[in-house]
């Protein structure tokens, strides 16, 4: 159990529109410069992952994810109040994004 506590402002809503994998990110800042609403700011330390400064201004357009040169380095998540589920027609099983023990990914790419 930690006993240290801090006086900090409340977390922003949505908390974190995008998640950057610090191990994969090369700090190239491509996402920073394609974001339409300047949600991200470059890290003051060169080569480090950008800072998701304004998640409350994210349009969830996904441009940062699409342009990232390292697959998997950025993940976008719609906020929890933006998620819908689906039902498997044959079995009636119900799924949703974010569930525990999710089904395996469907790897079929989109058209185009």
């Amino acid at each position, binding site marked *: 159990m930690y006993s240290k506590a801090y006086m900090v402002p409340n977390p*922003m809503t949505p908390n974190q529109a995008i998640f950057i994998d610090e191990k994969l990110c090369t700090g190239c800042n491509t996402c920073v*410069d394609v974001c*339409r609403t300047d949600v991200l700011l470059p890290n003051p330390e060169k080569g480090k992952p950008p800072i998701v400064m304004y998640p409350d201004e994210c*349009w969830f357009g*996904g441009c940062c994810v699409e342009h990232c040169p390292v697959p998997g380095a950025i993940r976008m998540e719609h906020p929890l109040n933006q998620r819908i589920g689906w039902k498997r*027609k044959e079995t009636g099983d119900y799924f949703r994004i974010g569930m525990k023990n999710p089904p*395996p990914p469907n790897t079929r790419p*989109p*058209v*185009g």
Partner: protein
Amino acid sequence: MSNIDLNRSMDWPYPVAYGKENEVEADILVLGGGVAGSHAAINAAKRGAKAVVVDKGAVIRSGGGGAGVDHWHGACTNPCSKLTPEEMIELALHGEYLLNWEFGNGITSYILFKESYDALLDVERWGVKVRDVDDEFKGAEFRDEKTKLMFAYDYDARHCIRVSGGAGIKVAMHNEMKRLGVQIYDYVMATSLLTEGGKPGGRVIGATGVNTRTGEFYIFKAKATIITTGPATGLWIFSTELIGAAASHGDPNNSGEGTAMAWQAGAELTMMEKVSPMPVSGGFAYPMYGTGNAHNTWYACTMVDANGKEIPWVDRDGKVLKTVSERYHDVPGQKAFFNGPNLPYELRSPSLIPDLPERIRKGEYVLPLYADLPSMPAHERRAIWGLMVGNEGKSRIIYNTYQQAGFDPDKDMLQTNVLPPDRYFFYPYWNTMGPRQWREGGGGGIFFDWDLKTSLEGLYVAGTSGYAGGNHAGSASMGRYAARKAVAYVQTAREAPVNQEQIEKEKERVYAPVTRTKGIGWKELRAGLARIMQDYCGEYKNEETLNMGLRWLNSIRESEASRVYARNPHELARTLECFTRLTVGEIIMNASLNRKASSKALGLNRLDHPEIDPPEWKKLVTLKLENEDIKVGARPVDYYLQPPNASTYEENYRHHCGL
């Protein structure tokens, strides 16, 4: 980042230089680098003009259509189309395809029908995959075997084309602009128009801007200026607490700068009283295209209830359709159909049973509903989920994240958000929750003529800044047309010096928030403005509420808005957007006051003038600023076929189109 300690805030990562002047000269200045702006800039550059594009966001992905496009409207000159532009405009005059019903604009609609397909061929040349070149849909009834074009909605009339790789369309346009030497100013927000002698109503000779990262000031001098920014979204809606800036259905960068700066410069605006007639859900919406649906991009997906019971599709006469294929075909004798709510009989598409709300209430269908993709024929299923959702604006990421989470359209039925039964009358379903007084503007904007010229010399308009603006293809068509007219104008336009006083005054206005450290922040100001719009200019209005609203807005301008602070260039930009929204709100309230009648097409409910669309109000109400007073005028709704214009579309187009 939620774990930043604000007491130890970090230095701003970009070099800050508030007020530092940068001068840029252009033949054609394009304000806004979205779909209309990109087509305008490319076409201007192709004609040898020095084109400069200014955008608040990154042009590589900015604009309402910046995150993709899946279907291309009005492309009736394609080799498979059963309709000519003349037939399309005739049909459109009767329906929503004019986008604003009887108040729609024949100029932009006709330009769309004449040039939509050409614009699509342009983007194909710039590298966008349009056709089914990989033969993935070989044999599908929406595909033409010879041209490999694929069609959406009406498989007989074939006027709407599916774009098979539209998700990356802005990247292709950006590359083409670079190739042609268009100068792009990303992250520069245009703030005002410069006029000859600094006088409102004078010739437009450029614009000012502020860099949203460095705070530097820009003076753009131009022989002609094309406004292509979007109209204000999210005027009634503001709460990042719910779903962030995505709370506005449209592009959150569209705060109405083009509308506000044209207004301040004295340009004539019209139809600003129009608001969305549908409930707009703002912060309560689901991601666009992201829940099970049957219309729009999801047309015409089978829907089932919680027990798997299928909801019937019917034709326009209420006859139940037995096959999926019938949903995509005209009934005998019908020339074409369009997909949309409340269409006139002759243009009505097949739809889900119109009494679905009633039947849900009676218990015949059990909520929640699901989009039954697995039961759809394979090509249709792949077209809806893989092509349309896979490429439409903001929905490539939906495709990717849902697939990543295991969603399989071959096996899974996507749930529809649960709504009160009466809301199932509207669609798309993802957007139909929320308080009724939360509206969205739409349709109003800058008045223009057959040259897409505004009432001010040197100022042109393309895309949704113009009144009754339309969709992706409409913006593209207008962009290329406006560029031709602006380039023709600059051949004879003389140089005009900018007025230093106008620049100094604008700098004082723009930088005031960075001189303060106390007061209120931009978010509270914006939420406060939204509240004024909700209460005094909401679903129902009267003279009293509108005058009260104007009083509040003016009072806020003098008080809270004069005390708002900005701690960095980003906050400054957001603050300036609030000022823009305040101005646009005032214009909307004034426009609403000056239409003393209710109107279905305009979404206007005047409690003190309840009669809906009385004949004497079938006219465009126009407003402009003249000597700091608002001058109200009127124009016939079909002014574009009235003198001095010719009486037919074809003749006007031929005379003006510049081809």
